[in-house]
């Protein structure tokens, strides 16, 4: 009985790490095997899952407006063309690079 209780407590402490994905693969297998043999344990996992759902709702989701999207993407584009130099592989490549650079001025 004592052994059963200590086992139960041990796996109880592992619910959050299990849901967090911070258990090792061996621990995950042990945990899942324990849950299979203790159906009442599933309720506790469900409670923790609800808790995690609540936490997710407390994390802000920024509104990504069309203007912000356009502004960030055009800055990304400019940064790539300004900060990165392409090495031409032959004459045609060199013409392509010069053409792209001229277009992105």
């Amino acid at each position, binding site marked *: 009985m004592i052994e059963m209780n200590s086992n139960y407590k041990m796996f109880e402490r592992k619910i959050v*790490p299990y849901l967090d*994905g*911070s258990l090792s693969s061996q621990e995950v297998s042990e945990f899942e095997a324990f849950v299979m043999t203790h159906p009442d344990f599933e309720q506790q996992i469900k409670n923790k899952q609800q808790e995690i759902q609540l936490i*997710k709702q407390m994390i802000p989701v920024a509104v990504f407006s069309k203007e912000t999207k356009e502004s*960030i993407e055009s800055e*990304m584009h400019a940064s790539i063309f300004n900060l990165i130099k392409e090495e031409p592989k032959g004459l045609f490549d060199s013409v392509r690079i010069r053409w*792209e650079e001229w277009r992105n001025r």
Partner: protein
Amino acid sequence: MKRKELHSLLSPLSEKLYRFAYTLIPDDLQAEQLVIDSFNAFLLRERKKLMAREVDLVSKNGSQILRRQYFKGILQHMLEIGVRRSIQLSEQIKVSRPQEYVPYYSLEPKVRFVMSLRYDAQFSVEEIEEIVQMPRYEVIEKIHNGRFLLLSDLNRGVNV
């Protein structure tokens, strides 16, 4: 990799990056600037590797893996720049933070970032270790503290 390929690989990340920047600094313009600065810092550090890389963008799986890898690289810079900026702007953040997210913005910037990595973007603990450059026990501690503080706040709200 050509610049055009790099652009098509990285531009779909803009929304996700913005979400993360907003968790550090809840101000539209500041968050936008943080995305751009982190992106530039990443490009400057990685440019040689980026250009030397041959990519097959036709393979959807291959480009997704590469995109995720670069996403993590940009987030690394965002954390470094963003935490510093978030501390400098802490007074402004107290005013600009959305009222429904006050408990979240009361957390330390690094804890906020780790919580978003875990619960918003669903990164594994191993991936978070890599992004935030912290040992595993510190990552787990930050997740635990963040969760504890948010839930305590929720319980306080219920009991009042």
